[in-house]
């Protein structure tokens, strides 16, 4: 899957996450910029969760911005998948 346009999913409500994706040049890889109130405690885990979704969709290059408001793993994965699929033009 290839990201062809900017897209987003989620919201800035409490316990949700807003994930925005933008196309990136080939070979630049998956770049994630994360803002989260739980960054110290769970930042690494959130990055892994988002990356797993991108890997599963076989996306190689993408710029992801994630603004987290305390969401749980299943929510992060669902928002990431929706944003990425939208960005791929599905």
């Amino acid at each position, binding site marked *: 899957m290839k990201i062809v346009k900017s897209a987003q999913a989620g919201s800035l409500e*409490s*316990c949700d996450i807003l994930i925005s994706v933008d196309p990136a040049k080939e070979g630049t890889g998956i770049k994630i910029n994360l803002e*989260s*109130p*739980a*960054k*110290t*405690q*769970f*930042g*690494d*885990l959130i990055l892994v*969760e988002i990356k797993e979704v991108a890997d599963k969709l076989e996306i190689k290059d993408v710029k992801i911005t994630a603004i*987290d*408001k*305390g*969401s*749980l*793993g299943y929510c992060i994965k669902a928002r990431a998948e929706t944003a990425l699929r939208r960005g791929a033009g599905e």
Partner: protein
Amino acid sequence: MKFVKNKVGRSIPEELFGKKLIPFTGKGKGPYKERKYAPKIRKTSPGDSKVLTSIQEAIKKGGLADGGTISFHHHFRNGDYLLNMVCHEIAKMGLKDIRLVPSSIQPINDELLTYLEKGIITHINCGTSGKIADAISRGKMKGLLTIRSHGGRARSIENGDVEIDIAFIASPTSDEYGNINGVHGKYACGSLGYAMPDAQFANYVVAVTNTLVPFPNNPISISQDHVDSVVLLKKPIGNPAGIVTTSLRVTRDPKNLKIARDCIEVIKASGLLKEGLSFQSGAGGTALAATQFLSQYMKAKGIKGSFGMGGATEALVRMLEDGLFDAILDVQSFDIYAVRSLLNNPKHIEMGASQYANPLSSGCAVNLLDTVILGCTEIDTKFNVNTSTESDGRIMHGMGGHQDTSEGAKLTIIAAPLQRGRIPIVVDDVVSVNSPGENIDVFVTERGIAVNPESQYFDILTKTKSLNTKSIEDLKAEAEKLIGGKPQKPKTTDRIVGIIEYRDGSVLDVIYQVEK
């Protein structure tokens, strides 16, 4: 630095900033001193006037010098203007290395940050929030933050652990001889409880008021024989509307409402919810909802309690008005409704901080509590409670009367959700210990109720079928499953920026500077 492990397993340095520290060895200890502190003797002679027109004059008369200590009450909460005003004056006068001893620091005091950075304020003794707390966490203050409970603060002033050079008392009304009350005037804030030890034990006491009334002021909360100067200002000392801007709103979250209901179920099951009940709750949204549910139940069953204590809130005052309590003991009025009640209702009694919660006195009111409902930012599997630091290690709050009421009450209930966002509330070890686990009986969450095996109510509560009791380890496991693992520990440096005292003056925990 040599360290000693205290009873809650925290490493406490033997000495810090030249002061020997006493490690916490369990509740009910002390006194660690034989006599109370005695302030300087002052004299006002016939014909002397106490009235001044500027804060600077009062600072000079009180003889404040570099390294001096000044105190304040926070009855205006986030509407207080006096603390900032006095600090600006001190900065203008070129004083430095000042120790601040307010009963709380609120977000309105954020503007003092620059004085921490410049070394004008080098030590703070009290709970803090907002930018000041954050700056201290990041090592911006040269000295030490000492966090005490309300009872612990009163004790530290009475036993001389803290010697106050000048106590500034924001006074809604005063007469020209320094008789003060908090219930009259445009800027009424209610009880002046936290200012009472300051007035009695400071070396110089300044009443600052916008409303000078004819002698004698009546009622008198703080009396003329303790007050040296009366500063009459045009600029307002506080904004009563600020009293309720922080922390006070009844919850509408169904999760928190369930927690509040279950708190009342726990009190019922304990056998304490009967004629003569005495009760206190915190001012968080869940605690306020619990107070309302308690009120409904007592009304329905015709149960009459003895006294309610606080942090007086509208919810508590309405219980008094409905005849559900005989009296309210009020150390701090949390909203305008409570302020009016203190003025008009003789059953609403003002109380000083020492009378409320000083453990090293001839008897404080928390000793007479049946039950208290409190909050937390974290609780661990040993039931130790953290109220001061976030799970990322930063200082965010004080602790109010948490330690005092949790030690004093027969049944102490901690009410909190299992997680806030992705942050678990139940953990292996809390970041900071504010109340030791031995004070805590029950932890109520939306997903179950954990009873401390050390609690005298363990058998009766765990045998009550209608309560969804679980072990605290099970609650922790449930939280971790939802969240996807354990939180990473905060990264800190080895510099101690704060200590948390137990109410008797021993040290429960230390707070380290966070990285970055």
